[in-house]
């Protein structure tokens, strides 16, 4: 940006505006977190007193712990399968051109724009028709679908800067195809696979629209539990639950960003 006096004024104005937008982006979350610590039952803002009551109460909410675990299990499994499938897809398509590549790529990435409510509805009917009643498995299968585009994208980005002569070097040194992939390619694209896995985890952990059709009484995911609870009562302990979930999500992301680098964020 130019540094003329007009330019500097403009820069400052832009940053001020950005600050406003940032406030807009963060406000709801900040409000919720602060309310989770506030005393009065009426959930006023700014909080007039601080307490951890709601957190204590939140932990007694029935099924909360169970839902939390269920969501974590679901997210880990979905992220893992999604990372494996996504890596295979990315490796298969990278560095080569074939007829229909654009079509196949669009197909793989389509769950990003395809309404997930339709995915949920379609899978519900699909599993019912097949009389497939393993609910947790159904949830995993559905979550993999909506998370695959993320892993494919991050791994593809890693492969775009991959030096393929390294594979030649490995092969000539005596590594067969499998060992070449395992010893040379995988370690180098690990950041891409990992960050894809993290996105997949978060998307699955937070997902409501697909889960809502596939879940049952024994498999209530955390978002579903929170949704139901927020509709049912005006209990402020819901803010504590919400605050905890915000913290978990941000913590997971921050740790991964530390491990892999914030650059991968723009791969979204």
């Amino acid at each position, binding site marked *: 940006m130019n540094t003329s006096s007009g330019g500097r004024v403009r820069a400052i104005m832009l940053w001020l505006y950005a600050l406003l937008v940032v406030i807009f982006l963060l406000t709801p979350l900040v409000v919720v977190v602060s309310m989770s610590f506030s005393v009065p039952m009426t959930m006023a803002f700014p909080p007039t007193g601080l307490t951890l009551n709601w957190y204590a109460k939140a932990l007694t909410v029935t099924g909360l712990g169970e839902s939390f675990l269920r969501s974590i299990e679901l997210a880990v499994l979905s992220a893992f399968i999604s990372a494996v499938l996504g890596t295979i897809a990315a490796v298969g398509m990278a560095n080569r051109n074939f007829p229909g590549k654009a079509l196949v790529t669009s197909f793989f990435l389509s769950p990003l724009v395809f309404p997930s409510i339709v995915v949920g509805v379609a899978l519900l009917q699909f599993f019912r028709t097949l009389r497939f009643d393993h609910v947790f498995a159904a949830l995993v299968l559905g979550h993999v679908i909506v998370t695959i585009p993320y892993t494919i994208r991050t791994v593809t980005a890693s492969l775009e800067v991959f*030096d393929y002569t390294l594979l030649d*070097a*490995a*092969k000539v*040194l*005596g590594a*067969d195809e499998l*060992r070449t992939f395992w010893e*040379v390619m995988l370690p180098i694209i690990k950041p891409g696979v990992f960050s894809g896995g993290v996105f997949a985890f978060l998307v699955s952990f937070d997902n409501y629209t697909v889960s809502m059709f596939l879940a049952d009484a024994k498999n209530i995911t955390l978002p579903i539990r929170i949704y139901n609870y927020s509709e049912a009562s005006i209990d402020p302990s819901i803010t504590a639950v919400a605050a905890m979930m915000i913290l978990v999500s941000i913590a997971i992301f921050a740790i991964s960003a530390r491990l892999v680098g914030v650059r991968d964020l723009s791969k979204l």
Partner: protein
Amino acid sequence: MTSITLRKVSKSYGAFKALNNVDLSVARGELLSLLGPSGCGKTTMLRLIAGLLDPTEGQVVFGDAVMNGIPPHKRNVGLVFQNYSLFPHMTVFQNVAFGLRMRGIDAKTIKSDVMQMLEMVRLSDQADRYPSQLSGGQQQRVGLARALVIKPAVLLLDEPFGALDKKLRDSMQLELRQLQQALMVTSIFVTHDQEEALTISDRIAVVSDGRVEQIDTPQKLYEAPSTRFVLHFVGASNALEGTVTRSDSSGVAVQTPHGLTIRSSVRPQVGLSPGDGVLVACRPEKAWLTPADEVYAGNCVPGTVKGEVYLGSVTHYFIDGPDGQEMRVYQLNAPGGRAERVFHVGERVNVAWGDENTLVFSR
């Protein structure tokens, strides 16, 4: 190490023929260079020998074993890349140890072999560093060590010094040659730099457009090029087009379009008859300059001096020939004889040389 043979090898990509009926032999312990311009097929040949590609026709033979269809990891070749291709996530030690590890060799032997190899390339103190922490020259030495430690049947090098600066390149060439001769490993070296090829090779194969033009020692390539391409690609020359007027056991006489007669006492290898179109040429150091009024009885081409470069031990003269083409005369600045005469830019001169130094090429 073994001998390497390419028998009638062709490689096509659809309609494009990268290699056309190539016959090539490399003897045990020999260093052969594949010399040619970009895209001539020399790297393709290398990749065929390595097993990264399969020939469309013909056979790749190690010793007496046909290698067609055998994957690269079973061929025991060493490959050194232009951009080093060191595994960035492994240390120098792990890079060099990789090939040994793939062969299932025990850790103790690996350690001693790797350290021994690193000693040979003078990098034993860098064993625990990562490639990104090394200079270009060091990285390439690691690449060499990695390829040699597995005691390959043949060492393949794909323009390995192309990414290095001139001084480093010169010293690496020497180092490679010493290493190769010490280990007596059959080597094939790809380059587009004729100086490099002339420096290190036992023999050179000049490649153009998927064909081998000539395989010979550096001297024979320079003194007796068999095709125009080799003439132009290796070393400089003074060349003129002309028509044969006489061709017999004593040599050839050629008349140029501007009425000059050039003679060669070299017996024609290809059958030439009067009327054939040919190219005659002479190497710059074989010619000398005379003032315009002194006409030499043998080959004598008039021209004007357009440039003079004094290089201490030699002087290079550049002359505008009768057709406007550039001619060169390299003159040794030794006492006595021709060196006593100095010529200046703008002077009218004759470029003269003896019949025994005239090279003749048919169309």
